[in-house]
Every structure is written in C-alpha cells, then in structure tokens.
C-alpha cells in the first residue's frame, strides 16, 4: 500500500520526473499521429489501387489476345468456383494520345482500355471515379449536354461547349478561306497559313490522317455528331498549378466535348498503326497519378473493331484481359495459384496476378516506410527512457534517507524496489495517457491544425497538387494505440529498473546517515 501512496505523492511533488515524461508524451502522441496518417494514406491508397484493379487480372501477352473469352470464363468459373463474384473482359493496348491544344499537338503515351461498361463496374470501381454524376451511376460513352462539375475556368463541358467550339472553328476556317481567295495566295502559302491554326488533322502524318477518311468526314457535323466516346484519365489532359491567389486550379488541354486522336497497333500479325479520332465524353479521376496519367477508356466493341479482333469466320471477339472479382474474404492468392495451374505459363502467354501482386513494390514501400517511422519514433521514446533513468537516479539519491527510513520500518528491498518500479509505471501510464489523449485530439483536428499552421507559416502543409486528397486521411486503429501505449509504458518501467535496483540494495544504515 505504502508504495502506491508514495508513488502518487512523488508524482505530485517531483515535477522533474514529470518533465522527463514529457518526452514520452510527445513520443506517444507523435507515434499515434504518424501511424494514423500513414494508415489513412495506406488505406486510401489500397482503396484506390484496388478500386481500379480488379481482384485478379489475367492478361494475355499476345497482341491479338485470347480468341475465345467465353470459353476462358467457363474454365475460370470451374476453377474459382463459388468465390467468383464478377467477371469482365477488356482489351488493353498501348496507345499514343494526340491532343490539339491551341494549334499545338500534345502527345501522351497512354494505356487504351476497351471496356464493357455493363460489367466493368462489377470488377472495379471504374464508374465511381468519373466526373459526371450520371456517368458515376451508369457509365456511358455518349457526350452529355451538361451536368459536368465546374472544374474548368475556361469553359463549361458538354455539347454546348462542343457546338461553340465547332462554330468558332468553322468561322475561323471560313475567314481564312476568304483571306486566301482575296490574296490569291499560292497553295504552298495556304498550307503555311493553315498550319498556324488549331487544326489537328494537318499536324499528324499524312498516312495516318488518311486512316479515318473513309468518306464520312464530309458528312460529319461536329455540332451534332460525336466520334466514339473516350474517357481520359484526368492527368493525361490536364495539369494542376496555382493561380496568383495561390489557389490550386486545374488547367485542361482538352475537355469533354473536344476531339482527340488515338494511335494504337492493330491486332494483325503485320502490325499497323490505327489512327482514330475519339470525342472526350468524361474524365476519370481516381487520385492515383499512376492511373490518372496513363489510362484512357473506350467501348470494348469499338476497340475490337478498330484493332481487328473479330474472327472473320466465327465472328468471335478476342480480348486481351479478363478481370475477376472474388467474393468478400476469398483467398486471392489461392485463386490466383489455381488459375496459374490451369493456365500454365509454358502453354499460355498469360500473366495472372492479384491486385496486390501488381502493386507489390508500392505497397511494400509504404509498409517499409511505416515500419521505419515506427522504429525511429520508438527510438525517441527510448531516448526518453534514458531521461527517466537519469531522473530516477537523481530521485533515488535524493530519497536515500527516506529509503533508509522505510527499511528501518520493516520495508523489504523488494518493497522499496517496487516503489520506484511502480513510480516508473505510473509515470509511463500518465505520460503515455496524456500522449494518447493529445495524439487522438491532434488526429481528430489534423485538418484544422494544418490550416492554422498554413495561415501562420504561409507554407502549405498538405499540398493537394501533390497528394490528390482534399483532406489528410487518417485512420485510428485500436491495436496500434494499445501497441504504442504498452511500448511506451514498458520503456518507462524498464528505465526505472536500474534506479529501483539501486534503491533496493541500499544499506539502511548508510542511508539513514546520508546527509
């Protein structure tokens, strides 16, 4: 009983020990904040990575793809069994995106994905990341009139914008034609003038330009018609930067309503480049720059048509990729392994991966980062432990006579030792308890705190141009809290062992005579 009474009294009267525990408090609070933010980032990243990639992806390396996807799906259903919750087939092909921006041609390398809008949402969260609210409900490759989010300072998106732009270009072309006829300019001169205008067709090579000729161009009215729809990853056609007021704004090279050109290989053995115009119908923003800057989505059947992936006799359509969604809690690795056994790599040019396999290095890097941060922060608490050790030694020296008195009153060495161990425990509990409260409070208000820091320092703490999140994501895991608390308390107790041993071994006579 006396040990607890003395512990509590020491806690109230020995402020130096409280000072030493502040480092434990700060360490615990920092660990909680860092782990919560890392867990938030990690979860958000997992969510986005997983949201885009289906659970299991079967990719065919052959350019012409898998000739009979239906049969493949039947085999897959047999292999995976009841765990299979959804399937979708698609065509992935590397492509070059060409955007006409104020008369300049912007080229981007993208992965062009032909998807079946009906089934693609069964295996991924594709629709969730589209900007148009209607498309989020049901993805469509038709340009919509309006309803796009107000992201662009330059123009509203949709049919209205498309009509305005088409009319403007038509007027410009008419005016140029008129100037040419008035000047009686030579055809070479006319070409030179034309190349200054925003006409993408003349900037692409002549042999490619002919590919989309097929006689329709004369009848195509851009104010009423659209090319096949394409959904572009937002970072393929935009950049983020800050305006003069330091607000983050998007700058778009093209927007829903614009036409873009795609160049991609066909599926024939003697590969040729297909050059096709598409009309941007929506943009795709997942927040993961890897996806947002490389993906473009079109309708599966269109892409199959353009690439020649239809068997001339049977009419069967090939695909390059089969995506699988498994039931909640299903063992992805087991399913992947079963599929690999069924489609062995020496017979099939298939790559079968789970979404974790695909993002393995990134997930491992985040995990490693979290582990290293935890080790470093625990080292801070360990340093605090040495502070406690030194302080406790001072307190033991200061309390030498009291230790002698306690022993004279019949206290055992173990009893005296337990005073200081309990004191360490109590300091650990108080220090880490305050740290826990502080850390949780910090995490709860982290965005407003970031705001205050920004307003004081003028430096943005959480730059949305870097992170693609509007707020700092946090997740508090109870197991992590327990871990941090137990670790900090253990360090405080361990740090008090040596001083406590010294107190226990003190000679009572020497202690009573201590001046």
């Amino acid at each position, binding site marked *: 009983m*006396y040990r607890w009474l003395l512990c509590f009294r020491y806690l109230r009267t020995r402020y130096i020990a409280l000072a030493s525990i502040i480092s434990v408090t700060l360490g615990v609070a920092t660990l909680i904040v860092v782990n919560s933010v890392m867990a938030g980032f990690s979860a958000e990243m997992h969510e986005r990575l997983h949201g885009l990639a289906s659970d299991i992806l079967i990719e065919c390396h052959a350019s012409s793809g898998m000739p009979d996807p239906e049969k493949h799906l039947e085999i897959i259903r047999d292999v995976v069994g009841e765990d299979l919750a959804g399937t979708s087939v698609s065509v992935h092909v590397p492509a070059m995106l060409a955007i006409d921006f104020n008369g300049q041609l912007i080229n981007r390398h993208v992965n062009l994905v032909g998807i079946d809008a009906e089934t693609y949402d069964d295996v991924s969260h594709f629709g969730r990341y589209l900007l148009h609210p209607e498309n989020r409900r049901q993805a469509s490759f038709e340009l919509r009139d309006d309803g796009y989010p107000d992201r662009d300072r330059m123009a509203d998106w949709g049919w209205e914008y498309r009509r305005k732009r088409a009319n403007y270009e038509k007027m410009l072309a008419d005016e140029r034609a008129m100037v040419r006829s008035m000047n009686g300019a030579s055809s070479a001169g006319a070409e030179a003038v034309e190349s200054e205008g925003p006409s993408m067709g003349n900037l692409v090579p002549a042999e490619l330009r002919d590919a989309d000729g097929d006689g329709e161009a004369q009848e195509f009215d851009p104010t009423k018609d659209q090319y096949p729809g394409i959904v572009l990853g937002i970072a393929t056609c935009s950049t983020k930067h800050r305006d003069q007021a330091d607000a983050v704004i998007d700058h778009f090279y093209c927007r829903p309503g614009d036409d873009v050109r795609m160049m991609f290989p066909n599926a024939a053995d003697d590969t040729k480049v297909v050059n096709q115009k598409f009309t941007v119908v929506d943009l795709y923003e997942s927040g993961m720059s890897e996806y947002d800057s490389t993906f473009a989505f079109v309708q599966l059947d269109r892409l199959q048509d353009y690439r020649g992936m239809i068997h001339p006799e049977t009419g069967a359509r090939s695909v390059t990729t089969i995506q699988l969604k498994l039931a909640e809690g299903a063992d992805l690795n087991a399913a992947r392994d079963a599929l690999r056994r069924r489609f062995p790599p020496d017979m099939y040019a298939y790559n079968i991966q789970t979404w974790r396999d695909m993002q393995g290095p990134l997930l491992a890097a985040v995990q490693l980062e979290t582990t290293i941060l935890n080790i470093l922060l625990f080292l801070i608490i360990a340093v605090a432990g040495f502070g406690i050790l030194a302080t406790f030694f001072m307190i033991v020296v200061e309390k030498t006579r*009291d230790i002698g008195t306690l*022993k*004279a009153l*019949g206290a055992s060495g173990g009893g005296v030792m337990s005073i200081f161990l309990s004191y360490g425990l109590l300091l650990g509990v108080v220090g880490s308890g305050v740290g826990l409260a502080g850390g949780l409070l910090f995490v709860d208000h982290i965005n407003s705190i970031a705001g205050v820091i920004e307003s004081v320092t003028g430096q943005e703490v959480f730059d949305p141009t870097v992170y693609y999140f509007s707020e700092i994501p946090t997740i508090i895991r109870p197991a992590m809290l327990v871990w941090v608390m137990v670790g900090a308390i253990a360090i405080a107790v361990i740090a008090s062992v040596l001083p406590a041993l010294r107190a226990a071994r003190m000679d009572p006579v020497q202690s*009573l005579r201590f001046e």
Partner: protein
Amino acid sequence: MNNDVILRAVGIHKSYHKDRLELPVLRGVDVDIEAGKVTALVGRSGSGKSTLMHLMATLDRPDAGEVWFRARRIDNAPRAERDAFRNGDVGIIFQFYHLLPELTALENVLAPTMIGHSVLGYFRHRKEARRRAEAMLDRVGLSHRAAHRPSEMSGGEMQRAAIARSLMNDPQLLLADEPTGNLDTETGQEILSLLRGLNETDGLTIVMITHDDAIAEAADVGYRMKDGRLVTSPRRAIQAACA
C-alpha cells in the same frame, strides 16, 4: 535465557572498512536489555553506541557475536524475518526524526502498518488502523497536526510524530537514537517525559542512546560505552555505592 531480558547482545564485534583500512567500532560488547525498563547507552561520539543500536535493530549485521530477541536469534535470521522484526517487534526513533516528507503526520504514523500488510490486507483493516494511528497521535499530543506535513511542524512535533509512528504496531521494544539530540532543552524534556510515561503506563521497554549523562542518570539502567566497549553502568555504579 532470563525471562526479564528482552534483548541480549553477546560478544558483538563490528568494524567498518575505509580504503582497505579496518576501523573497529565494537570490540566485544555484551549487553542485556531488561524488559519493562528504560536502558540508557551513553557515550561520546564515535564510541559505537549508535552502531550497537543498529545491530540490535537488525539494520546491520555484526562481524561476530549474536543478538537474541526473546528466545530467538535475530542477527543471522533471514532477511524477511528481520524485516518483520523491525516492522512489528521493535519501534525505532531517530535524532533527525526521519519522517517521510511527502506524507502527512497521520500517514507517517500509518506507514508501519502499510508496510506490514499487503494492499488488500491493509484495505481490510484500514479503518481500524486509522483509528489506532489517530489514537497514537492523540497520545503524543499531536492530533491537531494529523493532516500536516513534516515541513509544517516543529522539531518537537516531528519527534512526537516519530514516536507515534514507532508505537503504531504495538512493539515490545523501543530503540531511541538520541531522541532529544536535535531539540532544545525544554522540548527535549517533554519528549523524555513522554517516553518515560510510555514506559510507566504501558511497561514499554526503551533503549535510549544518548551522549547526555543527565538523561542517562534518569534511566533505570545505564551503560557507558567507550572505544567500542561497554565499560560501566552509571546507575548500577551509584546503586553499588549506596549499598
């Protein structure tokens, strides 16, 4: 062993070591403490009287010799037994009081009971213990200071609180190391009267270490120590002269 002898020290030798130098403090001390009496150990500083008291209280162990309490040898008893002896059978008061500064007078008085019991055991008897501690404080005339810390009390009050603490577990023997050594004459006399009263009313055996011959004269039995040896008993010398 004689029934009247509560504590007996036989052939006690004790040396301290300093830089390989052996400093003999006690050189073969034999002393019997008679039950129910006030025994004074008088001597100059360095004569070994405090060392002898520490050995009698089992705070230290002799190099040679034996210490017996009642019929059991205590100097070589296991540590736990010696702790229990100090906690229950003997009360100790010191020249510098040695109250625990973080605790109030009442808590200081309760300390021996807390030490002697587990947390549960103490909680089971805490009301009784508290009543006894208050009674002890009342007995030494300090009930009005029960909630005060040692830093808020005078020297005499602190020594009274220390006496109340030493009596808490109802010891059979009280060892007092210069109990008035740090007090003015008047306060010292009050403390001596208090101790004498405890001896007379409760029959408490008291061993008092002092360098003051006058205090030794007032004891029932007195021993003089010189150079680590017990030389004469002043009281007995007087008695012998009268006879």
